[in-house]
């Protein structure tokens, strides 16, 4: 075994977030190793998305710290975090409906572009070369996600399942080292879910991207993740391999609806 510290890509240590009187996330610690697919599961309102929002810099934790590649990103802004190589998708799709699939994905390349307004103006040739290189990368993503026939379609005109796929493409355009997926399969039928699961596995296999996945579909989570963390009412109640989680009595109770018994036990 390697020293776990070497492998660790992201660590959240005892992070908490309150909204008024609501404790969305309380004292949660998770650690994600480089190259793995880690899932966060839990009932609605368990604080999964809030945790993701803290990692990606949309929320600032009230207490605790988050480190990424050994540096503290607890107080970094979303744009800085994106530059460090953390990309995310949203539970409610966040795409520009009036733009084409290609443009939405190119937009994801934006943080990787160096020429600003002025340099684009002066060093026209250089800026153009940069644009071409980024377009080539966007095309690789289009090929990877099999969106070739939709390149020039407006995203607002696409069905839900495909918009989710485009959003994944936009996140991939960042060339992320860590990809945060917030319910990428929500509202999809079985076939679409299997497609997305295959893309997630392929992203991980082909580019070695580390993935944190929030997902409700247990079958998919258990199938593709290496480790699973379970949140309930803002607290982490279990962590382990899929097999361990499936046997864990606390998790079973939380999921079988006897949530308050589980809470008593946890307290």
């Amino acid at each position, binding site marked *: 075994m390697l020293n776990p510290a070497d492998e660790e890509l992201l660590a959240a240590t005892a992070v908490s977030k309150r909204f008024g009187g609501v404790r969305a996330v309380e004292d949660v610690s998770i650690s994600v190793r480089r190259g793995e697919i880690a899932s966060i599961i839990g009932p609605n309102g368990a604080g999964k998305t809030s945790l993701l929002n803290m990692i990606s810099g949309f929320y600032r934790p009230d207490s605790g710290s988050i480190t990424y590649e050994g540096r503290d990103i607890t107080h970094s802004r979303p744009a800085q975090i994106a530059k460090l190589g953390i990309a995310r998708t949203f539970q409610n799709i966040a795409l520009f409906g009036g733009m084409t699939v290609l443009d939405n994905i190119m937009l994801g390349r934006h943080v990787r572009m160096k020429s600003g307004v002025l340099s684009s103006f002066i060093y026209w040739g250089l800026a153009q070369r940069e644009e071409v290189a980024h377009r080539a990368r966007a095309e690789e993503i289009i090929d990877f996600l099999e969106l*070739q026939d939709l390149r020039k379609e407006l995203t607002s005109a696409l069905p839900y399942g495909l918009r989710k796929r485009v959003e994944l493409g936009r996140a991939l355009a960042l060339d992320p080292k860590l990809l945060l997926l917030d319910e990428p399969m929500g509202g999809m039928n079985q076939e679409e879910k299997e497609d997305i699961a295959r893309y997630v596995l392929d992203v991980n296999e082909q580019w070695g991207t580390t993935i944190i996945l929030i997902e409700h579909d247990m079958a998919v989570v258990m199938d593709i993740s290496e480790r699973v963390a379970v949140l309930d009412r803002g607290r982490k109640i279990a962590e382990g391999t899929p097999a361990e989680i499936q046997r864990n009595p606390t998790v079973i109770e939380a999921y079988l609806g006897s949530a308050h018994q589980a809470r008593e036990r946890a307290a």
Partner: protein
Amino acid sequence: MTLNATLPQLLRRNAEQHAGRSALREKDLGIWQTYNWRRYWDEVRGLALGLAAAGFKRGDKLAVIGENRPRLYFAQLAAMSLGGIAVPAYQDAIASELAYVLDHAEISVVVAENQEQVDKILSLKDRLPHLQLLVYDDPRGLLNYDDPILKSFEAVQAEGRTFGETHPDYVEAAVGAAKPDDLCLFSYTSGTTSRPKGVMLSHANLLDPAEVFAAAEGFRAGDEHIAYLPMAWVGNSLFSLAVHMHVGFTVNFPEKPETLRRDVREIGPTIALAPPRQWENALTEIMVRAADASPTKRRIFEFFRKVAERAQLCISERRPIPLGTRFLRGLGEFFVYGPVRDQLGLRRARVVYTGGAPLGVDVFRFFRAIGVNLKQVYGATELSGLCSVQPNSEVDPETVGRMLQGMEVRIAPHGEVEVRSPGTFKGYYKQPDESREAITEDGWLRTGDAGFVDKRGHLAIIDRAKDVGRLYDGTSFAPQFIENKLKFSSYVGEAVVFGHDRSFVAAMVAIDAETVGKWAERHNLPYTSFQDLCSRREVLGLIGDEIRRCNAGLPEATRIRRFIVLNKEFDADDDEITRTRKIRRRFVTEKYAAVLDAFYSGESEVELSTEITFEDGRKSVLQSRLAIGDVDEPSPPAAAAARRLEEAVAVAG
């Protein structure tokens, strides 16, 4: 003939004489990438060396399976270069069908396009005793596979480079030693009636028809062709391999099947080949889009469509076109015909072909009317795909044209079309009895089609010889002719007509989901699923009207009296149609025996349980109760078409 060469020899010639000219063009990552002739040969040679290193030798068989892709051509030519035989397989075949072909052909190497095909082949590994090597093109998803027979295309070529260091002229020597009469391709028939048969073709079989075809039609090196048809179809091999090697034009490959329409528009092919189904679909789509357009646009479209059809009628009846029509046609070219052709990507098309099955007269007329030089060709797998084509000045919807130079046709006493051609195959692989039966003692191929030769010497095909049926009272009728008439309706997807040994003609119709769906929307008809839509009374009425329209063009005795709207589409996975979309009449008749009984016993409904096969081979049963429609109102007799049919059938005897 004059070429006296093999396909790899022509490839080498092209690589030497036209090294820098474009041979293949593939859209990859959104950009058209060109392979010139030099590169084509290098890729083929590299792979051939790799195959030789793996033990592939003269007479061995290599199968390719996937969409039309340059690398699958490299693989076929690499096999041929070593004196081996290429066997293109249908990429959408389910595992059991594929197993039969690969096993029967004793395939030792398979070159597969992607993970989907690799998975299929690996699942069949136990049933393929000859299989030694499985090569894949697209590595996506295959990184963690560790089957010992699985190798990437690059890996095989890399092994070829090592082999080439010790055997520098290995491939060149093998190519030089080959003879035009060597076998090079097994084209498996799609099996309308039985198990697929392996049609054995030699280099000369493919190249001789290719040569006379190219000469008759004036193909040039500057032509652009787009290859998207199933690779297993012999027409594809003839065009994209044989004619391509001979003429040296550019073959373009679309990015994927879904982008075909856009890719065709970008390329603007100058020559194209499409089966009737494709033309029917294109027409349906034009009609759907016209119906969805604003009322003004719709009226303009309809007006100029009628003008074009009037003009077309004059041309086909050899009357001069009236001056007014001529003028309007000029306007129409600007407002309607040109833009429609442009939408179809046919603006630069010099000549386009339909073949493989009959095309509805009305579909044919429509495309001719809007200025597409659409022509019918006729051939059979056993004739290397082609024996007749319509000369430019003698295009006619009812014939398949004149025999090419060096080919002859005759009609056997029982009405069957027989052809003698240098393209005639060398027999079915491992089926000597069937092979003997296919060819007459004096060397003519029995095509199995019923037809006649008209006064100009054009061949006309009526139907499959065994399908020409007789009603109970002895009136003969051609089911396919009626089906094609039905299919002209944009609401009808597929149709099967019955009546042999029965008292009247009845039809089973599978609706076109898209157009009927739109129709239902326009008429505020709610429905939940395709099955629900099919079982609607209103849809029964709609199809009834379409049948009445079709009946108007049929002789009184062979009009459709009763019909049913099926609640599923005909599907090759259910064996109802072949992969080239020809109805398997006998199978359908047996499968839907209950429907037939209901038709002729006067029932008004039928209880139907149909088995549906999913792509992965799983089956499920669909239970349903379908209403039978009656068409009893007498409709006005339409003489012309009816007479034509009677004449045709009379000639066919």
